[in-house]
């Protein structure tokens, strides 16, 4: 709250007290590192002097696997497993890259279905992010409320593609299944159900004074630092940067809908603090609900699969494709050598990049703040380690 330097403690005779820094390990098995992240904390009492993240405990050789696959389609299930909380976003980004390499245009209906799925997934992912964030600062109940509502989204996904978490739904040139009968009504009903719930979360957690005290002015990430560190998604927007790839690097049909890009305004403290990042997510859910409702309204009839050759063989070349996942910019750098399997796939995962700024913003915080800051970056370790 106030920038104060603690003077070196001296005894009455003027000798300085012996004080030692302590190194403690937060993780890899720790309740609030959201997986197997290990943070090496150098602490002086409760104050954290330095944070050194160690990652790789969940490394599953995604990129090596991609090269070993026999065709482009087989990579999609692996993309799902990168960010298992927002799997749709992951596979969409990859599929978009392959489609651009092939030069395929997908049918209108597919675009609409994809947008609906991506935004539903964004809500689901943000619900987890916010719920676990509540858990990080000690509030248990919002977590379960949010899981309750996320469950409805997962049910929608399950009726559509049969899986609840790892969908393999968005395919090159289309989607695996058309929407099931009754989906549109159910999705509309969900949006209607969901809006009042946001108010409930706000009452219970967002505007709770203890929560504000815990998160406002904590882990302030200034806009220039955020850009230099390549932060993206709610992390970047929380710092007040009005930047959303859905609008600023348009893909799919997002430019047809009416929606706002939410940015952190520093209502409860400094711009770019944990509360701002939290609130950007909360407000984004509402915007996503807007997009879903519009897309449901405009849903055209038609085919759900473009004409794609059975064996996908893009021309030799490379490209970088980026989309806005729930956590930020998910990019795939895909190199094709003209064969049926990708030559190289590099995933630029948002959590990996967002996490790299953690040492910068944790300096001088307290241990409890490190938990709050790490929670507000909303990392998924599957995606950090790939």
């Amino acid at each position, binding site marked *: 709250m*106030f920038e104060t330097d603690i003077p070196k403690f001296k005894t009455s005779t003027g000798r300085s007290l012996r004080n030692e820094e302590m190194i403690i390990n937060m993780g890899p098995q720790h309740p609030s590192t959201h997986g197997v992240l290990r943070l090496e904390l150098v602490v002086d009492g409760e104050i954290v002097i330095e944070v050194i993240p160690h990652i790789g405990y969940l490394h599953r050789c995604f990129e090596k696997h991609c090269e070993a696959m026999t065709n482009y389609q087989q990579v999609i*299930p692996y993309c799902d497993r990168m960010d298992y909380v927002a799997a749709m976003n992951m596979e969409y980004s990859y599929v978009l890259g392959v489609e651009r390499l092939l030069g395929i245009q997908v049918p209108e209906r597919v675009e609409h279905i994809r947008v609906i799925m991506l935004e539903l997934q964004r809500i689901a992912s943000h619900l987890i992010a916010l719920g676990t964030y509540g858990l990080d600062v000690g509030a248990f109940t919002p977590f379960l409320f949010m899981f309750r509502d996320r469950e409805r989204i997962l049910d929608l996904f399950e009726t559509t593609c049969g899986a609840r978490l790892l969908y*393999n739904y968005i395919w090159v040139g289309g989607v*695996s299944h058309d929407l099931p009968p009754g989906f549109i009504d159910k999705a509309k009903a969900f949006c209607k159900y969901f809006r009042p719930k946001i108010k*409930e979360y706000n*009452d219970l957690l967002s505007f709770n*004074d203890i929560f504000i005290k815990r998160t406002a002015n904590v882990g302030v990430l200034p806009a220039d630092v955020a850009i230099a560190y390549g932060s993206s998604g709610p992390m970047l927007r929380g710092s007040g940067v009005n930047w959303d790839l859905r609008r600023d690097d348009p893909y799919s049909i997002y430019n047809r809908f009416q929606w706002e890009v939410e940015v952190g305004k520093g209502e409860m403290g400094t711009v770019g603090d944990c509360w701002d990042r939290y609130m950007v997510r909360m407000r984004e859910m509402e915007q996503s609900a807007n997009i879903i409702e519009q897309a449901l309204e405009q849903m055209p009839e038609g085919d759900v699969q473009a004409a794609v050759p059975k064996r996908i063989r893009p021309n030799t070349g490379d490209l970088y494709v980026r989309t806005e996942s729930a956590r930020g910019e998910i990019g795939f750098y895909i190199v094709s050598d003209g064969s049926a399997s990708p030559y190289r796939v590099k995933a630029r995962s948002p959590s990996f990049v967002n996490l790299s700024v953690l040492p910068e913003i944790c*300096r001088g915080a307290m241990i409890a703040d490190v938990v709050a800051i790490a929670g507000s970056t909303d990392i998924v370790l599957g995606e950090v380690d790939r």
Partner: protein
Amino acid sequence: MYPRCRILVDALNVPMREYFRNIYRGIWTVLIGMKVTFMHLFTPAVTIQYPDVKLKLPERARNRLYVNMDDCIGCFQCDMACPVDCFKIETVKSLPTEDLGMTSTGQKKRLWVTQFDIDIAKCCYCGLCVYPCPTECIKMTDVYEFSEFDRHNLIYNYATVTPAEAAEIKARTAEYEKEQAAKKAAAAQAAAAAKAAQPAPAPPSGNPPPSPPAQSPS
């Protein structure tokens, strides 16, 4: 040394109004939160008593794989589509004298499927194997409770022939092929002899025909 230390919050720097507003806000927002949780004390639970009550799975649910072996023609399409290699398939060519019947889609079966194992522990339930199947014999069912104490029990053998029968079939086919090869070789020899008699420069074709893959390419 501590650039952003926030321990020493000096209350005197906080204006008095802020102090009272803090207290007021603290109490008020706590009461609002308590109201929300109290209301939920009386709303019915959304959870169910799982093993007693089960949710109906949607039609498209992707769970355990099932293979209808009556329809399987041993084409390896599912094996090739699988990203995690959980299939282990072995086929043996049937003899021309044997009739393996037709699939329900009207295709003639030409191969004995002597081994069709799915390691369901490896399966990632992506459903990619379902689509390429020409006879629609592999599909994902709604069975999701199949835990086992031993992971080897999760390797499901779908082959309809027993190992003994498989060995017999293999032996039969190998014998038949040897016969065929011998016949071919004899024919080729005869042809070569015939050719040798003639001075025409015909290419010798002494090699036996490549035998069909007896094992899966894994």
